[in-house]
């Protein structure tokens, strides 16, 4: 196996084959890695800055300065998308382009595809940065980008995938190393997840509706959402670890066989775990149970990566003390271990009953994102800088300072937010000795504000660390040679004459035949064969992921009893639909859930728990995942007065002292877009929402009529005058707020209506 590539340094073009024809010559493309490295740090700074601003807005809602574009509901998706797809995404591409070429002893298959991928990805990020603050969103978490951008993502991702897999096919290394397995899993699964979660019917260039509704949409979204964590933030970073950690530590990987076991168990088990985001919600109980159990079983497959990482450092711990790069890796892998223990813990239903909707989840993801993704990225970047820029790192001291500032930043972020999450969860469920709720919702909000301030300090420190990295990068780059040296490597092509060494049983004669077979199997010669066959390997990974997915997805869609229908639940009126689109555009789901769980403290606070049949016209679902503000699933029953909502949107603090909801004054004056209603109803019609032809044709008039009624009632409730302050150029009945109020007044009321015809009746219980 010792066919080392000989490196010859030259700047002259070289012939493809060496004299004699036994070996081939090639040069690696490091320019693409340099480009992605630069963008990792630029977008990382943007993502973290946006995160800090969003964090400030939670402690100080006025910090949005009244600007719609940077209000929390629009900024939070920008933060998550930038952190995942721009910062972590570009970091993944640095790792893949740098390591795949070297592990395959081959230049990338196509430079054109590499650069198409690079520029395509940056265009996608710029589009995200423009559309999300403008309220152009699909409202599905981490899949907010609208359909034209989704199409672009699919094209660019496929180009990336073809380029990497084609490079593997023309490799000059006979076997594929474990890092490449993880890259294959990433490429295949992200493509599948992205395409199937983003299936929509467009209603214009900037608006679309998910083809799934309610419980099914929730199921697809969290199948996607959970596996975005799995296959965008875990598998590529494990691949990264498997290349850069042994390189930096100069130690062999602890166990090849562990690599096999944990790779396949991780890929197969991870994909099932999504429904643990939907415990106690209106998805079928069996799905929720599968989500929990596969998460529990995922614990050891996840830890396999941690073990292989940390034990690779055996005999090299003295280096860790001296080398900040290894320190970044060790802390990163440790956070991976903690987060992947906490994940199964949070997926246990009774733990989730406490943690769901709280900041506990936020602390959990930031332990993973800042600790694992952030620190693995920084370790890799510092290792690469001198190699890619061909100059010594400008300041190892600054790198060490970055490590400590970043570590303290992570701790100051996560510790107060863990405390905040537990505080929230315990206050929400507290019931006093008289059987009553112990706290108002707003008390649970004001209690968290000090912790939010500490989080801001932690996040700012982490951002400061990234800026140190950026400075170090720029100063190292400044000392680069006039022309980068591009060594020519030489290696023989992978011929066909490979003789496989058959495995021998290592056991004595005193055991049964089965034991011998098992021993031979455990030596993994069969897997060694797969490692020589990139296409077969890709097919196997695809099968593992797709079959596991279908086990859950097919029953969710075909078993009718999963979603019992409710006769009194009817489609939204055109005005309510317009209001719902505003709810989506403003990102209300980022702070408000619409899903009351069958938990006592929750039904006392919010009303009867949510039923699957209530959401059959919800394209897309709006269940949310957090309660920065209270649940709104029964808001139509709780606060029925339009004038109350109007005052509340104008400035929530007028109504609730201590509220951290930002004012939405623009909704009170922005004119509502009635003209696009027919195209929206048509899209809904295509999705099977039973609007009649007449309803679609008359939708503008009927929406205007309902708007006049809502506006009239608001004015009546306000002693006959328009309650809005300031200029009133736009009549109340033409404003966005009227549509939004109509939508909110509709929330959760349908199941209390009397059925017009004999149908399934709904029994009402004491829910308050």
């Amino acid at each position, binding site marked *: 196996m010792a066919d080392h590539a000989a490196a010859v340094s030259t700047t002259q073009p070289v012939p493809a084959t060496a004299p004699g024809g036994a070996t081939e010559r090639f040069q690696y493309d490091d320019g693409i890695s340099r480009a992605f490295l630069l963008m990792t740090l630029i977008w990382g700074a943007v993502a973290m800055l946006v995160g800090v601003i969003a964090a400030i807005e939670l402690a100080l809602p006025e910090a949005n300065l009244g600007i719609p574009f940077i209000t929390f509901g629009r900024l939070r998706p920008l933060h998550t998308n930038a952190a995942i797809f721009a910062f972590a995404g570009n970091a993944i591409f640095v790792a893949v382009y740098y390591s795949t070429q070297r592990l395959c002893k081959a230049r990338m298959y196509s430079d054109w595809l590499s650069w198409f991928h690079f520029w395509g990805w940056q265009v996608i990020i710029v589009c995200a940065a423009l559309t999300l603050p403008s309220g152009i969103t699909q409202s599905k978490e981490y899949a907010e980008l609208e359909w034209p951008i989704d199409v672009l993502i699919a094209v660019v991702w496929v180009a990336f995938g073809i380029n990497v897999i084609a490079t593997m096919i023309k490799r000059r290394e006979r076997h594929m190393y474990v890092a490449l397995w993880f890259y294959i899993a990433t490429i295949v699964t992200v493509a599948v997840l992205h395409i199937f979660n983003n299936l929509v019917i467009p209603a214009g260039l900037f608006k679309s509706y998910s083809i799934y509704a309610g419980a099914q949409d929730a199921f697809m979204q969290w199948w996607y959402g959970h596996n975005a964590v799995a296959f965008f933030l875990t598998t590529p970073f494990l691949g990264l670890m498997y290349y850069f950690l042994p390189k930096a530590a100069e130690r062999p990987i602890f166990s090849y066989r562990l690599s096999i076991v944990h790779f396949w168990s991780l890929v197969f088990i991870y994909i099932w775990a999504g429904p643990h985001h939907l415990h106690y919600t209106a998805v079928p109980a069996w799905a929720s149970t599968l989500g929990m159990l596969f998460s529990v079983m995922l614990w050891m497959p996840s830890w396999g990566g941690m073990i292989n990482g940390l034990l690779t450092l055996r005999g090299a711990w003295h280096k860790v003390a001296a080398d900040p790069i290894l320190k970044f890796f060790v802390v990163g892998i440790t956070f991976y271990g903690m987060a992947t223990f906490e994940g199964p813990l949070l997926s246990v239903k009774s733990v989730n009953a406490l943690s769901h909707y709280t900041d506990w989840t936020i602390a959990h993801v930031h332990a993973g994102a800042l600790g694992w993704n952030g620190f693995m990225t920084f370790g890799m970047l510092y290792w690469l800088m001198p190699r890619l820029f061909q100059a010594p790192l400008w300041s190892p001291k600054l790198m060490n300072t970055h490590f400590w500032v970043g570590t303290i930043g992570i701790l100051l972020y996560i510790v107060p937010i863990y405390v905040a999450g537990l505080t929230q969860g315990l206050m929400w469920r507290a019931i006093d000795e008289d059987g009553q709720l112990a706290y108002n919702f707003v008390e649970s909000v004001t209690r968290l504000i000090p912790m939010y301030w500490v989080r801001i300090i932690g996040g700012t420190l982490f951002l400061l660390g990234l800026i140190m990295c950026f400075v170090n990068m720029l100063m190292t780059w400044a000392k680069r040679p006039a022309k980068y040296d591009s060594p020519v490597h030489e290696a023989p092509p992978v011929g066909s004459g490979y003789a496989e060494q058959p495995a021998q049983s290592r056991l004595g004669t005193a055991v049964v035949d089965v034991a011998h077979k098992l021993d031979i199997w455990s030596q993994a010669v069969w897997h060694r064969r797969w490692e020589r066959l990139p296409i077969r390997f890709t097919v196997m990974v695809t099968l593992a992921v797709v079959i596991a997915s279908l086990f859950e997805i097919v029953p969710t869609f075909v078993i009718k009893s999963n979603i019992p229908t409710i006769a009194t639940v009817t489609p939204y009126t055109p005005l309510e639909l317009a209001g719902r689109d505003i709810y989506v555009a403003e990102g209300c789901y980022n702070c408000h859930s619409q899903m009351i769980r069958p938990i006592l403290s929750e039904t006392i606070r919010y009303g009867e728990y949510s039923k699957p049949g209530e959401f059959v016209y919800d394209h897309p679902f709006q269940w949310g995942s957090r309660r920065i503000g209270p649940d709104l699933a029964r808001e139509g*029953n709780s606060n029925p007065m339009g004038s109350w909502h109007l005052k509340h949107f104008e400035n929530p603090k007028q109504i609730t002292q201590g509220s951290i909801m930002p004012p939405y004054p623009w909704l009170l004056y922005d004119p509502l877009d009635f003209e696009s209603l027919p195209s929206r109803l048509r899209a809904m019609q295509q999705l099977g929402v039973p609007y009649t032809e007449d309803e679609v044709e008359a939708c503008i008039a009927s929406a205007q009529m309902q708007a006049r009624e809502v506006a009239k009632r608001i004015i009546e409730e306000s002693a006959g005058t328009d309650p809005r302050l300031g200029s009133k150029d736009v009549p109340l009945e033409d404003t966005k707020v009227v549509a939004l109020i109509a939508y909110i007044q509709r929330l959760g009321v349908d199941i209390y209506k009397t059925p017009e015809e004999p149908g399934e009746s709904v029994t009402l219980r004491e829910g308050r």
Partner: protein
Amino acid sequence: MSTRPDVLTDHEYDGIQEYDNPTPGWWHWIFWGTVVFSACYFVFFHMSPESWTVEESYELAVARNLEQQFSEIGDLTPDEATIVRFMDDEKWLKVGKSTFAAECVTCHGADASGLVGPNLTDEHFKNVKTITDIASVVMNGAANGAMPAQKNRMHPNKIVLVSSYVASLRGQNLPGPRGAEGEVIPPWPAATETESSATDTPNEQQP
């Protein structure tokens, strides 16, 4: 860690080597342990008649909660005597108060001096002539649903207790943002039952 020396495989990729170490034993034990646990869990919760559903345990919690709340007083009817009686009952008026805090403050304000709904602390009333009208307004709503009907959503005892609490607010005359609305009505009837706890416990003081 075992004392067995690490043996390298013959693998080498860009200088990276791999040991042929086995997967640690505890890894296998815990992994197969979670698999067995999962199988048992699924069988128990989805196939065994001994188990219970989320909805069942929720119904049980609701029943226990109602018992905790109302076991002493039984089922109340929203008549004059009952509403007046609980105005003087410190313990049960607290339930009325917390119901008010949960359901009513968004429109009537935290101190009941009015917000988008009318002031409840003065002598003026819009839809109330007698004390039992308070309970009717709570049950059936008023002002075309601006004040929502609660009879399908609120426990009957809570309707009585929140009515008692609202009645007890009268006379504080807190300045509200809306000014006086409706008419001045006669004072509430006095408590009829002499065994009421009114003598030994003072009326609920306002926060």
